[in-house]
């Protein structure tokens, strides 16, 4: 059974605003798009040391965020992974190949690109949202997992 999740409009808007704030700060201070795809693939590429350090610091901050929140507030987000291990591996591989060719993901295209009204990002976002809706429909209602 697929778990029901609570509708959280206020927390989601607030969290979204933090994501937007991070994107604006990265542009204001470092002149970069805050895209997880670009940051991660650059981290795997090596190259310029200053550039690599910047990406490493960003990723370190992201990974440490739940730990920092727990230390400061005592709250930790409860998550449920409602899919099988094979689905995680297959999904992860497909996401990796897809975002590489598509040149970005939810953060790079969905937030940063759309925020500056990039035509490429608007097309990319429409494309990945559409196939995500279709994929979940097929898996949950046609195959009926």
């Amino acid at each position: 059974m697929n778990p029901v999740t609570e509708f959280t409009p206020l927390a989601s808007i607030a969290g979204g605003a933090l994501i937007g704030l991070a994107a604006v700060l990265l542009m204001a201070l470092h002149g970069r798009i805050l895209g997880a795809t670009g940051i991660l693939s650059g981290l795997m590429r090596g190259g310029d040391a200053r550039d690599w350090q910047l990406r490493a610091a960003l990723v370190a901050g992201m990974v440490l965020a739940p730990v920092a929140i727990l230390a400061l507030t005592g709250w930790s987000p409860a998550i449920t992974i409602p899919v099988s291990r094979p689905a995680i591996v297959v999904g992860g591989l497909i996401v990796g190949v897809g975002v590489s060719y598509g040149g970005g993901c939810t953060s790079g295209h969905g937030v940063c690109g759309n925020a500056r009204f990039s035509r490429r990002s608007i097309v990319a976002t429409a494309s990945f949202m559409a196939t995500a809706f279709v994929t979940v429909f097929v898996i949950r209602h046609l195959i009926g997992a």
Partner: protein
Amino acid sequence: MRLLSALLIGLIFGAGIAVSGMIDPAKVLNFFDIAGTWDPSLAFVMAGALAVAIPGYRLVLAARAPRFAPGFQLPDTKRIDPALIGGSALFGVGWGIAGFCPGAALPALGLGLPDVVLFVAALMAGLLAARGLKRLGPPKPARG
């Protein structure tokens, strides 16, 4: 200061992912499940992010240069090509299968769950595989 600010930006981003609920694959997959256990929350995440980023970018990009870099690095390509559309479509399929996107999975790593580590390892393998495929020839890559 340069790296400390990047660490802080990563923390803010990760906190946003955690607080918004994007960090939870159950919530993400429910957003895409209109015909089932639908949870519209993620539309509010996007709305909150754009409500800050649209005016924020407008303000910031009007400046001459960022604080710690000589200039703004914005993608220069404007082409809508098969790689952009097909790659993004593929990403959506994987997102719908696993429930994680790259930006949500990185902060989720901090929760210390083996499944998240597995997803990020598969994601990195996918990025490497694509890099290898691009080296072999067309379709031309889009950088992001």
